[in-house]
């Protein structure tokens, strides 16, 4: 028996490793698939860039000589520069003159004084130009000189062609290398895919084995329970076995109904003597918008925290159908592993990082998609840069989808609450979840913002096919978008059904409006 347990432990451990490896390999395969294309693009753009750079440099170099050939000789050039300098000097002098005279005389006198000043300056300028023309007269190029100029241009031509041919050679070399790299890459992808297939087979096998084991255990436990009740066994033992039986029943129930996404069964959460949630059970179906409502302090957020493992529940089961369509017991997962299974959540009070831009905030959420590690982050390896670029594009795409792309590069600090809520939504979308848990998405929003948010939630639900599970106080929002509503009060379920059914449920009305026994 002990040995069996140990083997089971080992098997579970190996299964966990397999699942992690499977996810990582999937990410890697995707990375490799994009890699070849990206490299090709990179090589091409760098070639184009260097070509452009060479052209620019060439034009810069031959500019003077070209001008000389066009009849604009060195003397002309010097003259031009000197006149420019003179004009600049005169501009500032005039401005100075204007300011100083404005301080002394009134408006009309100022105009007159300026006119006088301008005229005198014009004469001076003409004189200056004349003297320059005497000093640097226009001379056409002699034959010898033009020959030298031509030679120089030819030299630059040759240099440019040399550089270009070198670059082209390098480019071709790189393309050739790319071809071999592509072959290698293809091989690598195939290898990884094979590995992935093997891993998923192993995972399937394990799951089947667990299912068979569970069914055997169920029979085993049931007989045990019967004998125990007959023999009046201790209460604790009976409870223990009952718990195990319940767990297996919930798992079997989830497997039997393929449309169930999350199955909560007899969830209990006690804080000391206070029963925050007591025997709550419901199923969230795939692709629906599920609303959890209840008066203040009914334990709605506690349910969320139990699902995402912030609280370790006192009892009950939470069985989830994960990203890979496998059945997972959420109680066996750690808080930071929940997102890997495909559950993302938002918070009641917006939990964004104010020091980062909106887009960087989304990148934080993509943490579980990383394939790079610390060492690569330390040296900013190429792989990390590429990964970051990909994630940034993805984040930007999500922001565009939600219509908040204009805020991407600013800090979320000081943005209106409606936008912040949308950023939180965008953040939950970063990891391609299958289930999003929203904790009071409409809290603190006005009516227009709430209507807008409802639209966004619906579009997420339909466009990406993501199941949405929300807690909300705003009855208008819940009744308008939810497919199924579950009402709880003091930790107990008082009704579940379509919004209409809930609206007509007398118990729900009593919980919300107080117990009116008169009517």
């Amino acid at each position, binding site marked *: 028996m002990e040995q069996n347990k140990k083997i089971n432990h080992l098997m579970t451990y190996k299964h966990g490793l397999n699942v992690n490896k499977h996810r990582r390999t999937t990410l890697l395969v995707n990375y490799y698939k994009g890699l070849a294309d990206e490299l090709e693009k990179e090589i091409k753009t760098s070639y184009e860039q260097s070509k452009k*750079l060479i052209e620019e*440099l060439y034009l810069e170099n031959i500019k003077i000589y070209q001008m000389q050939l066009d009849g604009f000789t060195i003397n002309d050039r010097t003259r031009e520069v000197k006149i420019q300098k003179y004009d600049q000097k005169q501009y500032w002098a005039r401005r100075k003159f204007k300011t100083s005279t404005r301080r002394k005389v009134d408006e009309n006198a100022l105009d007159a004084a300026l006119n006088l000043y301008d005229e005198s300056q014009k004469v001076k300028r003409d004189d200056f130009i004349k003297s320059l023309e005497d000093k640097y007269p226009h001379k056409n190029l002699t034959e010898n000189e033009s020959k030298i100029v031509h030679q120089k241009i030819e030299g630059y031509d040759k240099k440019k062609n040399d550089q270009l041919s070198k670059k082209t050679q390098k480019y071709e070399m790189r393309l050739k290398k790319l071809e071999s790299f592509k072959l290698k890459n293809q091989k690598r992808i195939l290898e990884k895919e094979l590995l992935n297939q093997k891993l998923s087979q192993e995972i399937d096998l394990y799951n089947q084995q667990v299912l068979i084991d569970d069914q055997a255990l169920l029979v085993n436990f049931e007989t045990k329970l019967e004998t125990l009740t007959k023999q009046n066994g201790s209460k604790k033992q009976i409870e223990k076995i009952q718990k195990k039986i319940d767990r297996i029943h919930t798992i079997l129930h989830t497997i039997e109904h393929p449309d169930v996404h999350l199955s909560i069964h007899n969830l209990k959460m006690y804080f000391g003597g206070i029963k925050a949630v007591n025997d709550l059970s419901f199923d969230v179906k795939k692709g629906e918008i599920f609303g959890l409502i209840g008066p203040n302090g009914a334990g709605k957020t506690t349910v969320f925290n139990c699902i995402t493992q912030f609280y370790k529940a006192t009892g009950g089961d939470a069985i989830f159908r994960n990203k890979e369509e496998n059945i997972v017991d959420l109680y066996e997962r750690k808080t930071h592993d929940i997102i890997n299974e495909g559950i993302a959540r938002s918070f009641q009070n917006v939990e*964004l990082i*104010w020091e980062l831009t909106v887009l960087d905030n989304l990148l*934080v959420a993509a*943490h579980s998609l990383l394939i790079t590690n610390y060492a690569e982050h330390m040296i900013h390896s190429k792989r990390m840069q590429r990964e970051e670029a990909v994630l940034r594009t993805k984040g930007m795409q999500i922001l565009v989808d939600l219509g908040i792309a204009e805020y991407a590069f600013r800090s979320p600090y000081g943005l209106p609450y409606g936008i912040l809520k949308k950023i939180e939504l965008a953040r939950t979308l970063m990891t391609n979840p299958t289930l999003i848990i929203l904790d009071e998405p409409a809290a603190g929003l006005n009516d227009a913002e709430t209507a807008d948010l409802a639209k966004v939630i619906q579009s997420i639900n339909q466009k990406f096919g993501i199941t949405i599970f929300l807690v909300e106080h705003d009855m208008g929002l819940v009744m308008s978008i939810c497919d199924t509503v579950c009402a709880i009060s003091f930790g107990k379920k008082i009704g579940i059904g379509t919004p209409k059914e809930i609206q007509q449920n007398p118990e729900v009305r009593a919980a919300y409006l107080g117990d009116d026994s008169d009517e």
Partner: protein
Amino acid sequence: MKLYFREKVKPFMKKPHFGFLVVGLLLVVLRLLVNVLPPDIYGAIVTTAYYYLAGLGFALLLGYGGLASLGTGAFVGIGAFSLHFVFRYLAMPLTVAILAGIILAILVSIAFGFVSLRISGMYLAIVTMGLSQIVIEVIRNIPQYASGTTGGFLSGPMARPLEFLGMRLNSNSAVLFTAVFVVAGMMIVHNLIHSSTGRALLSIKNSDTAAQTMGINLLKYRLFAFVISGVYGTMAGILSMLFVRNGNVSQIGITFALNILAAVVIGGTKSVWGIMLGTFVIFGLDLAVFQRFGLGNYSLIINGVLIILVVMFYPGGLIQLFGDLKRFINKQILKVKEHIYGTE
């Protein structure tokens, strides 16, 4: 040549890494100018350089991880004393001594990380203070250090020169060592800050519940931040030992940890350059400036007033001062211009 410059060098010059390289080069130039510069300024700059490393590591903990640890002194002590012990008393080569110090630091910082896993804020400061006290007490109880000081490498019966890869290191050559580590340290911290790791640390600082839902493993990142800061502190200790050639246990206690904390807070917890400034204010200003003007007796008071002023008017750190100064000067220039030339 020109093409190469435009293609490769110019884009690199725009990167922040170029600035870090310049810092390294300046340190190398400093080494060459050792006979020209007054020794107090030289000493102040070198001291700033190696304690800057400790500050950088600590900034990753405080500014990004939000973990206010007071254990930096312990790591500097581990660096200095383990280097000395392994080199002098175990008679190992210098490289081995340095590596031993770093490995020891990693182990101790992992212990720090584990102990402080579930606590934060004030309590973390107290716990790390206690841990660092334990480390210092352990150092003090090694018989060779019973007097509280290391005697240096070159004195005593077993004196032998410091050699690294066949190169003989005198006290001033250690500056080259410092240059290499400072550049590497700056680059690594800058890269980490601008990567997923830095963002993950920030998100933990912001809210650890939100960080966990995003798949960030608290334990992993806390340990990582502690290890990095521990290794940086140890490097600071090792470099200080190579330069000063002796150490004192009383130097690495709580005062040192508080000094580093002050340096990081004054400079600006999130800026690589700000920390450099802050470290200079704390460790170098006294030697380089106050004592020159005969204010050595008042240096503690002046430093205190300076810290108060900075915290009051520049809560983001001294690094803000530069931006403000630049803006102020530009404004003044514009004003003068307007006075002389008038508006358009």
